[in-house]
């Protein structure tokens, strides 16, 4: 059981690390569209991290639902940014920024729950790869 939990948190830590670490050799985003694509992967990582959190018991089912709802809101902003990026760049940028903010808060929440379960777990809120470059 303890071994399984350790493996779970190791996986979460790796997800956070991979998500956070643009220095691992990932190509930096040069265009808004590429930043948006990376933001979608951050969204994917939050969902995956939350799934691990729910499966490991770090998150309750209710917490998982709340994270899912928040992630759906972030996805709606990402989709809206995608839909308008060629016609209204400023609005699209605002939507991307809102989505990023939501994702950062969700990841912080999930990481806090995981660290509460296992204080030695490494789970840092991820900056979006390439989104700030």
């Amino acid at each position: 059981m303890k071994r399984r939990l350790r493996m779970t948190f190791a996986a979460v830590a790796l997800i956070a690390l991979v998500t956070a670490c643009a220095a691992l050799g990932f190509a930096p985003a040069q265009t808004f569209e590429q930043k948006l694509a990376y933001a979608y992967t951050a969204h994917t990582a939050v969902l995956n991290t939350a799934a691990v959190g729910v499966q490991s018991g770090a998150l309750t089912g209710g917490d998982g639902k709340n994270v899912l709802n928040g992630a759906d809101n972030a996805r709606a902003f990402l989709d809206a940014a995608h839909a308008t990026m060629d016609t209204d760049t400023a609005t699209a940028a605002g939507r991307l920024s809102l989505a990023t903010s939501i994702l950062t808060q969700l990841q912080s929440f999930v990481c806090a729950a995981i660290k509460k379960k296992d204080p030695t777990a490494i789970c840092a809120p991820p900056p979006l790869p390439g989104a700030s470059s």
Partner: protein
Amino acid sequence: MNEALILLQILTQSAQSISVVSGIITTMAQENRTKMTPDEWKIVLGNDDSARANLVNAIAARMAAPSATPPATA
């Protein structure tokens, strides 16, 4: 055992989705493109949709067995 495989799958999917975008960006640079193709977007969005389905399934499994936080020992 199954959970270990699930975790490995989740981990792989996260890393994969990031490296896919990195690969797309690299390809765009090599081909001197500024726009992603619909197929490239389909891959990015498909990964995200799969991750959502994973979370939905995890929530459903947990809600179905709320008292089974630590799985019962045999």
